[in-house]
């Protein structure tokens, strides 16, 4: 037990550990004026010489939502990790109810009633929903006997409160991303959290799922829970939060009242300068004739792998950017995996540059010129423990016809260096470990490694999940740049706003491609409606097949 309240109030739930004597009022107590539930003051943290946080302070009131915004690598997650006892601050203090507390490890945080839903979902895949929710609860410091009936009762109660209804005995492995997220949240509520920090909860949610979460947050705040909310989805931040703190390069640059702020201002604060509004493909170089004038690169007919993909047919032309919209679980990832041979189709045909194309492995796909930037960069895109340099070289090795080929570290590094510059990857050096990079920069590395193989068709699955506004604009620029060089691009996204960069958007629902929306008719609400299967569309080609 390392919770050391500095004032003479016993730590909650722990009788055994008395005050560590030193309650001598040498240190000035907290100003009695503060009413905040949680305060972090003057927090600084460096990693091997680089400053992640530089004397930041933040305060969360009970029953309110305090949002934390900032570019990738601004230090948001680091702050949360310090609060969670995962990292130790070099300087600064944490106050709970105006009392100074010590959070040396996650256990302390849990004992203090602080709950966390971290950026990487932290569940045990092979555990059932119930067991995941029960994890870490139980009487601290005592090895109790499992009271399964009680736990089930409590879990049911939490589910009711959150308004979700996932069978408690299903393995978490089997759940969709948003359901997993609810399980995480449920775990926090199993132990009467007074404070919950959420690090990019909606990153891979659809709008529908996000609004479901908003409702839950409302319910929690009305019970007096304080929430620290981190997200790159600025509209959502403005909607859900009461206060917004913006970090830039480890420093606090502003605290804004959500009600008096707009997206424009928030963006400027985050990036430090004005960012042009996301330019839609239409406005920029509107060229709806691409499809007619350019040769077809990939042609897909009746591609199937039941039950997730059923009879998909479409064409992608040279230099064209095609989007695929859909709800989570619509089967888009599965479709992408079929295109690169990560899974085998059970029916249908493909032609690539007019030649039959039936990849049996990602290797064959890459050799033929089709690459997939997978949706989970940490688990599927990167070797986190390896250098940026080696990560950037991976797909080139994978596309090499012979494994006996020479590997030339010098030229490989030079190529990697050039890619880093081209995509402005921010890292200490090319020898830096991928693990140390912020999310946006990691994503750029993944895109970079595939671009290095000069694919004719690049498939990107959720390319900007967890990427900040600035870096997001850069990734769009990379995508449009590639297209203008003749590369065909397929963008899968649940963030319909970004599908504006596409020449054409296909809509997938229940494993089938159900509609095609040209850039001229692009409209987010319209897309959403299509994804849900409402048919009040105008002029869109409904391709109801199979």
């Amino acid at each position, binding site marked *: 037990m390392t919770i050391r309240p500095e004032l003479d109030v016993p730590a909650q739930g722990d009788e055994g550990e008395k005050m560590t004597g030193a309650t001598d009022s040498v240190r000035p107590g907290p100003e009695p004026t503060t009413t905040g539930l949680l305060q972090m003051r003057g927090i600084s943290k460096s990693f091997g010489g680089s400053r992640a946080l530089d004397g930041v302070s933040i305060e969360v009131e009970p029953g309110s939502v305090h949002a934390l915004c900032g570019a990738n690598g601004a230090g948001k997650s680091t702050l949360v990790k310090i609060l*969670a006892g*995962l990292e130790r601050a070099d300087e600064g203090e944490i106050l709970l109810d105006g009392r100074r507390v010590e959070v040396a*490890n*996650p*256990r302390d*945080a*849990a*004992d203090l009633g602080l709950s*966390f839903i*971290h950026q*990487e979902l*932290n*569940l*045990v*895949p*092979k*555990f059932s929903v119930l*067991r995941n929710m*029960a*994890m*870490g609860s*139980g*009487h*601290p410091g005592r*090895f*109790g*006997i*499992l009271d*399964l009936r009680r736990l089930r009762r409590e879990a049911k109660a939490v589910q009711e409160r959150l308004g*979700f*209804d996932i069978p408690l005995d299903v393995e978490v492995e089997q759940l*969709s991303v*948003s*359901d997993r997220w609810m399980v995480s949240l449920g*775990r926090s509520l199993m132990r009467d959290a007074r404070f919950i920090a959420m690090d990019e909860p909606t990153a891979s949610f*659809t709008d*529908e799922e996000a609004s*479901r979460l908003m409702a839950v947050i409302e319910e929690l705040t009305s019970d007096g829970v304080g929430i620290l909310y981190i997200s790159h989805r600025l509209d959502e931040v403005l909607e859900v939060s009461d206060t917004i703190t913006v970090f830039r390069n480890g420093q606090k640059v502003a605290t804004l009242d959500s009600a008096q702020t707009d997206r424009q201002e928030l963006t400027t604060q985050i990036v430090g300068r004005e960012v042009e509004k996301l330019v839609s493909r239409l406005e920029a170089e509107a060229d709806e004739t691409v499809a007619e004038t350019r040769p077809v690169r990939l042609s897909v007919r009746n591609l199937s792998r*039941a*039950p*997730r993909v059923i009879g998909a047919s479409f064409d992608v032309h040279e230099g064209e950017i095609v989007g695929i919209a859909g*709800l*989570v*679980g*619509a*089967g888009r990832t599965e479709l992408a995996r079929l295109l690169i041979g990560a899974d085998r189709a059970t029916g249908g045909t493909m032609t690539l540059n007019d030649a039959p194309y039936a990849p049996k492995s990602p290797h064959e796909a890459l050799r033929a010129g089709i690459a997939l930037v997978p949706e989970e960069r940490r688990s599927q895109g990167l070797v986190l423990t390896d250098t940026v340099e080696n990560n950037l070289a991976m797909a080139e090795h994978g596309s090499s016809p012979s494994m006996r080929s020479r590997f030339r570290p010098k030229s490989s590094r030079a190529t990697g260096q050039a890619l880093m510059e081209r995509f402005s990857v921010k890292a200490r050096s090319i020898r830096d470990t991928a693990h140390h990079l912020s999310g946006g920069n990691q994503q750029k590395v993944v895109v970079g490694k595939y671009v290095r193989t000069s694919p004719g068709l690049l498939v990107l699955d959720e390319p900007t999940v967890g990427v900040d506004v600035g870096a997001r604009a850069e990734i769009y620029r990379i995508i449009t740049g590639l297209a203008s060089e003749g590369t065909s691009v397929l963008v899968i996204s649940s963030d319909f706003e970004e599908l504006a960069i596409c020449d054409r958007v296909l809509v997938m629902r*229940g*494993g089938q491609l159900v509609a095609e929306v040209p850039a001229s008719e692009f409209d987010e609400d319209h897309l959403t409606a299509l994804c*849900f299967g409402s048919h009040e569309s105008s002029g869109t080609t409904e391709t109801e097949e199979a």
Partner: protein
Amino acid sequence: MTTLMENEPTAEAPASKSHYFEWFGRYGALLVLAALIIVTSILAPNTFPTVDNAINILNQSALSAIIAMGLTFVLVTGEFDLSIGNTASLAGVAACWLMVNQDFSIPLALVAILVVGGIVGLINGFVVTFMNVSALVATLGVGTIVIGVNYMISDGAPVALGDPDAFLEITFGRFLGIPYPVYIMLVIAALLWWLLNRTVLGQSMQAVGGNRVAAELSGIRVDRVRVIAFVVCSMCAAVTGFLLASRTGSAAVSAGDTYLLSAFAASFFGSAVLRDGQFHILGTLVGVITVSVGFNSIALIGLETYWQYFFQGLLLILGVGVGTLARRRAAA
């Protein structure tokens, strides 16, 4: 939520085939055991399928089972322990030495070697958690030191009791016709099963093994849990060493070493029993018994030495492989 429900797996033709494979994946390892029993019963009808022989097999399984179930605890938390064989050897030698040279009674000696086992486990846990050395290296190193301690005590020579009768009774005594070691095995199995499945500690162990970071984040004292797993494991190894010594009333410096590989084999085999690669007590028990049945079959049928090895190797690969292959098919 509702949106996702649309996409439910549709009950289609391929589903039934995949269900079939799923069933096979679950029961594949048990099927291997069943096949073994049936074939041997046919080949050796008078000697194999008898109550006596069944008791025999259980009795032969007891010591291996105890050490393997302990190892299972460590494996469940995602660690390794290469020192168990050495710990078992040390326990036997220490027990006999204490009874011979320090006039310890049997129960007192048992308590003492449980303490010894516990200390070895603590050291393993300390080196792994505090020094952050990978469990493989740590337990290989600690195991080597344990051999040294063993050597220091015994000087390499076997330690034998002057009047071993009471001690031998632990191995040879019977209750209702069933030897004590079988009861000891079953009691320990029940205890460990309960610990792993019905206590917060056990759940925490499984959580740590399933996703260490997640466990840490949810407030589980990961290091403590890992240390406890090592302690349980070493204590089980110590019990095996103790029982081993009670077979002959004496202990040799490397008597327990062979249990290392057999315990691993049993645990890994067991992880394919009813589960998809997760370690569990029941599975380990089945693993140990399968190996014993296999050995018993070979000996009863009477095969050349090299056949014995072929057979054991195949048993291991097939027992695990059948299940995983079937699961893969089920998933495909």
